[in-house]
């Protein structure tokens, strides 16, 4: 940095003498390192600029012109002298005035372009084109401390040297995307120990390729490919999922990794059920709102109950299959059974854990079982969701429940079109028939349970007696 105007309150010559004396004694007695390895011309500059001096601008701004020679010696420019950038030697020190610091910086930065031409190409030209007017080299690179790019601190801090500023990229479509990265967001993500280039592969301290993408969406889809380099298991599962499937069919709105997990803010997906359910809402808002009114969604949202299923518990997270398929439909009882056949969990809510088994032993359940074994099926057989609903599952005690007898006939009619008002009575619920709930069935079963053994034992005894008599007669 060059001092254009000596402090007003000092006589120039006195100052110079004092400086020189102090400076020489200083280097002599404390054997400061630069004494041996700085050029004479620099020594001449430093004779003054190692002092506390302030430059006053016309606009009233002040700038210290004290130079720390150590800083220069650590910079990449240690091999060039002050005059190489500042354009004059100590003995030819011009006297200039500047209106503002900014004016001075702009002027001084022009010097850089004498050696460095990359501002006209590649990443610098792009950055400059987007930067506020008047952005100059020193704004990013500093001046006396300027470092070779690859010598800057490695890791994320290296990238953040630039990306800690407000800047954006523009896609061909005209969309803009900020590429200002907040360090605190990175630090709170699960990837805090990764470096930027782990995901942004192809980039390094040496390389910053210029790429163009048609749209923001194209970029997100391309970037999500990075995830599979570590999360290959999840990636392979998504290949079987419906989202990937519709993506490959050309629907670019189908979610990729970052749509659910975030990009720089990525956090562990397992932690919070509510947040997880919310992810799906972004696209499936209608279903989410239905779900939020259901017994499961209501408990999740209002009571923060973590026992209830969220979207991914039934649909899975990565290998989401099309729920409209027969296979998915046929898997529903096991899906519901994951919780509803869990004795410990169901006891907590006073729900019978026998619902799955009672279904499987009934006409519909038996039919389903054989359908699942691959036999031809004329039409889908009723599973849990066909009577209880899917996202709108309600408590049985709620008056609007589709499962209380008054409403049930409508559900029956979905398959049994000609069902009449008393047809739902044929469904003896998920209970074992007993004397109160289904007396007729109970009595018939009880009768046969007594009669069949009585009959069979009687017949067997008679056979044995007959054989015995036959043998005795011979």
């Amino acid at each position, binding site marked *: 940095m060059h001092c254009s105007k000596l402090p007003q309150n000092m006589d120039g010559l006195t100052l110079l003498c004092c400086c020189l004396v102090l400076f020489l004694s200083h280097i002599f007695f404390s054997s400061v390192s630069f004494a041996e390895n700085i050029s004479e011309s620099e020594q001449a500059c430093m004779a003054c600029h190692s002092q506390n001096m302030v430059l006053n601008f016309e606009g009233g701004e002040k700038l210290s012109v004290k130079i720390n020679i150590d800083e220069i010696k650590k910079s990449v420019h240690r091999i060039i002298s002050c005059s190489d950038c500042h354009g004059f030697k100590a003995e030819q020190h011009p006297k200039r005035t500047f209106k503002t610091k900014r004016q001075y910086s702009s002027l001084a930065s022009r010097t850089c372009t004498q050696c460095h031409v990359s501002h006209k190409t590649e990443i610098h030209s792009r950055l400059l084109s987007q930067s506020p007017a008047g952005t100059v080299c020193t704004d990013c690179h500093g001046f006396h401390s300027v470092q070779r790019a690859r010598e800057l601190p490695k890791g994320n801090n290296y990238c953040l040297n630039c990306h800690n500023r407000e800047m954006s990229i523009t896609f061909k479509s005209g969309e803009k995307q900020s590429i200002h990265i907040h360090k605190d967001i990175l630090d709170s993500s699960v990837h805090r120990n990764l470096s930027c280039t782990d995901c942004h592969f192809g980039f390094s301290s040496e390389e910053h390729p210029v790429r163009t993408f048609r749209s923001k969406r194209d970029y997100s889809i391309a970037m999500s490919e990075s995830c599979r380099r570590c999360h290959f298991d999840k990636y392979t599962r998504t290949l079987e999922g419906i989202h990937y499937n519709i993506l490959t069919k050309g629907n670019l709105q189908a979610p990729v990794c970052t749509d659910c997990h975030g990009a720089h803010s990525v956090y562990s997906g397992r932690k919070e059920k509510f947040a997880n359910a919310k992810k799906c809402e972004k696209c499936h808002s209608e279903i989410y709102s239905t779900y939020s009114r259901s017994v499961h969604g209501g408990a999740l949202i209002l009571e923060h109950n973590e026992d209830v299923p969220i979207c991914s518990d039934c649909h899975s997270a990565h290998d989401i299959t099309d729920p409209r398929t027969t296979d998915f439909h046929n898997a529903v009882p096991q899906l519901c059974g994951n919780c509803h056949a869990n004795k410990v969990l169901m006891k907590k809510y006073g729900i019978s854990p026998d619902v799955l088994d009672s279904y499987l032993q009934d*006409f519909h359940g*038996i*039919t389903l*079982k*054989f*359908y699942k*074994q*691959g*036999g*031809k*099926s*004329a039409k889908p057989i009723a599973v849990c969701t066909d009577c209880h609903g899917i996202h709108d599952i309600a408590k049985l005690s709620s008056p609007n429940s589709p499962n209380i007898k008054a409403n049930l006939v409508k559900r029956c009619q979905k398959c*049994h079109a*000609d*069902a*009449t008002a*008393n*047809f*739902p*009575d*044929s*469904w*003896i619920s998920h209970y074992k*028939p007993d004397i109160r709930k*289904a007396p*007729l*069935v109970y009595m*018939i*079963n009880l*009768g*046969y349970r007594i*009669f*069949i053994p009585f*009959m*069979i034992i009687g*017949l*067997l005894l*008679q*056979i044995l*007696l*007959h*054989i*015995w*008599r*036959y*043998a*005795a007669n011979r």
Partner: protein
Amino acid sequence: MKESGKEYIKRFGPFRIFEHWLNALVFVVLVLTGLSQRFHDYSISQWIVMALGGIDATRIIHRYTGIVFSVLTIQHIISASVGILFLRWQPSMIIHKKDFTDAIDNIRYYLGLTEHPARCDRFDYKQKFEYWGVVVGGILMMATGAILWFPTMAARFLPGEFIPAAKALHTNEALLAFLVIVIWHIYNAIFSPEVFPVDTVMFTGRISKERMMHEHPIEYERLFGVSHGSPSGEEITEERPVT
């Protein structure tokens, strides 16, 4: 009718033989397709269902075989009723008080409490038990089977609970019928030392005079008189009117 030194008497006409064997075939099909639904957890059941082309195919086979069974049963009831009421057939299957005493007498004989087994007519109490089992059970299976085939139709006329009740009746009655046939009928027709290796009457339609005398002495005496002298050899048919 003489053959290899033995004298035979005609017991069943060709139609009754056909009726028996068709009924047997239908019964086997119904049992295989029906019990494999009831005992769906067993691997043999699953094999049967899959071999028949899945549960829908199994049910179709079961239902249409059920129709054949129903036609057979109704035909039998109608022809027997008409025969007895208008053609003066012997109502030989009617259960009498004597059948109960015969059963008790026979068990006493087996236990060695009496010297002789019960003296039975054309059909002994065991045969009547099976016959009425098939007829009454058949009517029950037809009625409950129809309810299960058309549950919504049934619910129009019957309380809803009748449908699971029909299922309970149908499956339990089927199991009972299956066990009675497998244990009792198969014993009496094959494994009983008196007929082993097989009772040929339902193949040939004739019974040896000697066996008839032994198993159906009352019928024998009615036909040939109490004397054990040489019988006429005249063929006696079931439909022969009582004169």
